[in-house]
């Protein structure tokens, strides 16, 4: 029994880990210039000073890999890991299979923040980030904070109030967005930038940004694993979880904060990439079961691989034009989701 569960865990995670690494190299190899995968492996190993392979590639190729492709591909992996983990956290906490990382207002807050930053005549940079990612991050985290406090009554924050408050706050923000878009010419707001942000577009300007996002996302994914048992218990509902020893109000704050930070980190470098936070947790749950001890790390690895591949398609399918990565995730994600749902229809009992 013990070995069975452990073996499954090791097997599934190794498999998904291999997929993620394969996706990393695959996506680094393709683009405007194709670079052979063995060369990428060799130059990476040279770079981290493990080996000293003879140089069989050009300096330009090395620049493309290290200055352009790898930052973007790793950025994509981090976005996928963050969104898929946040999706598992929100679905588990809210006990709602339709929940995704955007459900309680992170997306609306991030979009509004980013849009405001686009027309404000201020430009500053912090840790390698410009105004837009910073404003998106603040918008996402601030909205969840607002929703949580609006939903709070008498020392408790019922899940249902939080969902309702999330819907209302999101609609309000969407209305403000619509207003800003309407008067875009007066604000000198580029509709193209707003549009690109809303559809999702991975924009990593360099290693400096990754040095901030990576610890946040990887730290968040590891920290989430500490709540695996409690997320399992939360399947019983708030009262049921309390009966088996979970401090529900405290867990709610921590899980919400963690999920929101992960989402905010993702949307700050990618805009609103949809479907990842919904489809990846479901695909993993349907394939490997609902136990969060396996589900959390599996979703992180699967989500990373999924966004890398989606972003590879986004920049190669119609090259030199680039399709928004959110369009690709939806085009792949929706049918895949329907397939899974039909195959195991009984999985979700309402």
């Amino acid at each position, binding site marked *: 029994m013990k070995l069975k569960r452990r073996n499954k865990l090791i097997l599934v995670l190794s498999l998904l880990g291999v997929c993620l690494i394969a996706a990393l190299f695959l996506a680094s190899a393709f683009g405007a210039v194709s670079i052979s995968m063995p060369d990428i492996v060799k130059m990476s190993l040279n770079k981290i000073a493990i080996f000293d392979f003879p140089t069989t590639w050009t300096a330009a190729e090395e620049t493309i890999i290290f200055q352009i492709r790898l930052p973007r591909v790793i950025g994509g992996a981090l976005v996928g890991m963050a969104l898929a983990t946040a999706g598992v956290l929100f679905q588990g906490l809210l006990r709602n299979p339709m929940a995704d990382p955007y459900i309680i207002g992170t997306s609306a807050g991030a979009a509004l923040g980013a849009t405001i930053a686009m027309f404000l005549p201020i430009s500053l940079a912090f840790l390698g980030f410009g105004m837009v990612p910073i404003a998106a991050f603040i918008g996402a985290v601030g909205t969840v904070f607002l929703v949580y406090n609006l939903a709070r009554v008498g020392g408790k924050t019922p899940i249902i109030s939080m969902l309702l408050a999330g819907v209302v706050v999101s609609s309000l923000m969407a209305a403000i967005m619509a207003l800003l878009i309407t008067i875009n010419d007066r604000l000198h707001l580029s509709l193209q930038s707003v549009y690109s942000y809303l559809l999702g577009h991975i924009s990593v300007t360099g290693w400096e940004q990754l040095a901030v996002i990576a610890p946040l996302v990887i730290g968040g994914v590891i920290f989430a*694993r500490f709540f695996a048992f409690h997320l399992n218990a939360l399947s019983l509902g708030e009262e049921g979880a309390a009966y088996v020893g979970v401090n529900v109000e405290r867990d709610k704050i921590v899980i919400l904060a963690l999920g929101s930070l992960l989402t905010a980190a993702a949307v700050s470098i990618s805009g609103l990439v949809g479907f990842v936070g919904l489809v990846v947790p479901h695909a993993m749950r349907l394939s490997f079961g609902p136990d969060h001890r396996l589900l959390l790390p599996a979703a992180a690895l699967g989500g990373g691989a999924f966004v890398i591949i989606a972003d590879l398609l986004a920049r190669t399918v119609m090259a030199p034009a680039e399709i928004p990565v959110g369009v690709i995730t939806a085009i792949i994600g929706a049918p895949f989701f329907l397939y899974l749902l039909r195959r195991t229809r009984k999985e979700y009992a309402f």
Partner: protein
Amino acid sequence: MIGLEIDRVDFSYFDGLVLEDINLSIKAGEMVGLLGPNGSGKTTLIKLASGILKPARGEIRLDGNRISSLIRRFIASNVAVVPQQFHIPFAFTASEVVMLGRTPFFRALADESEDDRQAVDNSLELVGIDELAERRFDELSGGERQKVILAMALAQQPKLLLLDEPTVHLDIAHQMEIVELVRGLNTGRGITVVAAMHDLNLAALYFDRLILLKEGRVWADGTPEQVLTEAGISEVFAASVRVEVHPLTGAPHIVVMPRVRTTKPH
């Protein structure tokens, strides 16, 4: 074994008192049934005793310790609750659900221990559902699910078991099975039991002490014979009944007297 004291407790939701001046002392090892009409406060009393609701006035003590001063993890390793039913939105197996009862004993990143697995196996066996272990919880019948939930509560290795109308959605055979299981846990293992019950006859057959609630107050407290009287039941439930004697056990047996005659008299 663990005792429960409810000392001058008032409780209200947003509007009006739900419980008023409740004083109860339940000794370790007792098997107590809570009776009363819908809305009389049975469920609220169970929730107060489990510590998930806080009294507006008065205090509740577990083995002499104020429950409000205890952390949830500690409470859950001593007190287990079986509600009317659980809805679990994800596809856990029965044994995974029972394992949720081990939550208070888990440490953050550690895996489940041999003790945990042993406790789950024992609980499944005790409730007699070993063969359901790998079945999916959401595909089980209502009676089977309730047994899984009882096994989950037992996996907590509780000293006090609180049940909130555990048989309310079950057929007669499953009702008896659940109540007899609980009775066996009380006599066999000395687990203190407090159960809200809606079926008066079932309560009369298996419980040593019954507490009758009316509009948030204790109306009667004693043995089934003392509590289940014709006058008492007609007063509290506003139902006309006759109390007979159970032919086998001698316990009070309540016969409902119809106000409309549906069968011809002999």
